[in-house]
């Protein structure tokens, strides 16, 4: 957050979002530089998942400015005016942002490998042979080389989530978003998914991770944000925030989860 010369991968300025009369985000300011890992923690309903979904325009921002790699998300800027993007242009923005969901959302009618090669073939226009080659590499990278022809229902939760990560990586994103990637997993399966994410972080991928895994945040995150009630309550070095929380709300939250 100190280096202001490089183009930030994610820059949020006063981002606000309401669902009806329910104001979920009340002016979020954030900055993620390329190669950084940002972890977002906070109680449920604090708006952290909504913020993540705003980054790839699954939700529309009501106020403030949100940009990814210097480009305003969901809009095109002409002078002072913003123009809403056509679906096609929004899709082009999204394909550079990978997203991993809490409930995996693998396509159940496709095998693991088919899940991975679908978007590269349909969206990027890759040849099937190339996509399969890349998909096989990615399966190996998440440690599932032998599961390519398994359907999602034949895989454990942890394996499904690793396939979902490989699927997102297949689009060669410059930014990866993780929405509580281990929350739907049995406890013994959490580790295998976190290991893949750690590997990804050490390879230099820019990541924004909404998580309840404090150990992961402490070990991997460059920056930790604590959100509550739609605002950023506290942010900074994860060891600082977790070890020595300044704000009362952070202390209250951490005393419950740690």
């Amino acid at each position, binding site marked *: 957050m100190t280096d202001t010369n490089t183009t930030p991968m994610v820059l949020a300025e006063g981002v606000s979002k309401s669902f009806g009369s329910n104001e979920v985000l009340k002016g979020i300011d954030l900055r993620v530089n390329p190669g950084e890992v940002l972890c977002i923690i906070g109680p449920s309903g604090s708006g952290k998942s909504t913020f993540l979904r705003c980054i*790839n325009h*699954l939700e529309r921002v009501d106020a403030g400015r949100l940009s990814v790699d210097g480009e305003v998300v969901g809009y095109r800027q002409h002078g002072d005016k913003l123009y809403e993007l056509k*679906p*096609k242009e929004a*899709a*082009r923005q*999204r*394909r*550079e*942002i*990978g*997203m991993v*969901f809490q*409930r*995996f*959302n*693998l*396509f*159940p*009618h*496709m*095998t693991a490998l088919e899940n991975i090669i*679908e*978007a590269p073939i*349909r*969206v990027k226009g890759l040849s099937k042979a190339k996509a399969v080659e890349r998909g096989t590499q990615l399966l190996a990278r998440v440690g599932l080389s032998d599961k390519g022809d398994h*359907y*999602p*229902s*034949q*895989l*454990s*939760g942890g394996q*499904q989530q690793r396939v*979902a990560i490989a*699927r*997102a990586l297949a*689009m060669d994103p410059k930014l990866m978003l993780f929405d509580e990637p281990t929350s*739907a*997993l*049995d406890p013994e399966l959490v580790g295998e998914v976190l290991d893949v994410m750690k590997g990804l972080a050490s390879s230099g991928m820019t990541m924004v991770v909404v998580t309840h895994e404090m150990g992961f945040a402490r070990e991997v995150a460059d920056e930790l944000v604590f959100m509550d009630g739609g605002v950023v309550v506290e942010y900074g070095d994860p060891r600082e925030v977790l070890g020595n929380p300044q704000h009362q709300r952070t202390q209250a939250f951490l005393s419950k989860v740690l």
Partner: protein
Amino acid sequence: MSQSNTARPATGSFPSPAGGRSEPIKAVKLRHPGRIVLAAVLILLLVWFVVDAANRDAYGWQYVGKYVFDKRISAAALVTLQLTVYSMIIGVLLGLILAVMRLSPNPVVKSVAWLYLWVFRGTPVYVQLVFWGLFSLIYPHIFLGVPWTQLGIDLNLGFMQNAFVIAFVGLALNEAAYMAEIVRAGLLSVDQGQEEAATALGMSWWQTMTRIVIPQAMRVIIPPTGNEVISMLKTTSLVAAIPLTTDLYGVARDISAVTYTPIPLLIVASLWYLLFTSLLMVGQYFLEKRFSRGVNARRPDRNEPAMATGALPAAGAPDGNDLGGKG
């Protein structure tokens, strides 16, 4: 047994005599005399009916044998099949469009689709067919063009005097209303997360629908659609309302009007209808199997079904397990 003991040590805590392998239970089976009596009565009634029918002259079995493979009948059966296939193809496509229209965020588009459903589901198909038969009296031709000028094209609606065309178009328009509801239920049964995942990968709306949502919706759409096909095959007998008389029932009636043998020809027509519906049921079975890919599979090396981990929220919906029941 020993295998599952090593896999699940918890079961080892149960006392199991004779080294984990227990004797099969030998007990006197509970008798169900009521069941046996009921079954006997039903079989007796059936036999009695068959024997009686075989000897009843009014059925005219010799005529059944004579006409069941009559060229006129088999040609008419082909007409009935054509009507069914054509009207279902148009009906499914139109129904798909109507379903997407009903789910559209555009209120006008939504209302138009609702209006269509309201009219076509709210009036009897027989009445609709009579109406389409009279259609060319109301609109002999339609002028499509710029109002108050001569610019445009004059559409000759002569084809709407062809009873066969009227028949399958009329049946299709009615069917579309029902298919729209079936397709809509199918589309809504697919978990929202599927569309989100596809969108997040940069797939367009069209790609998301054709590659992700519709293939999954098919699992829910096919069983009731199979019923619709079977139902349509039988509804084609109503084309007499237009009037069209080249279909199976129409021809059977025409023959019987000449030979004064209505009952055997009803049986002949019914046999052909039964043959087709039986074939359709077989086809439906294989289609359902094809589109349940990835749903019924279980991991052989795991004790609990993987669905419990929430991978398939859509499959866990109430419609997940009753596929066979509807067919």
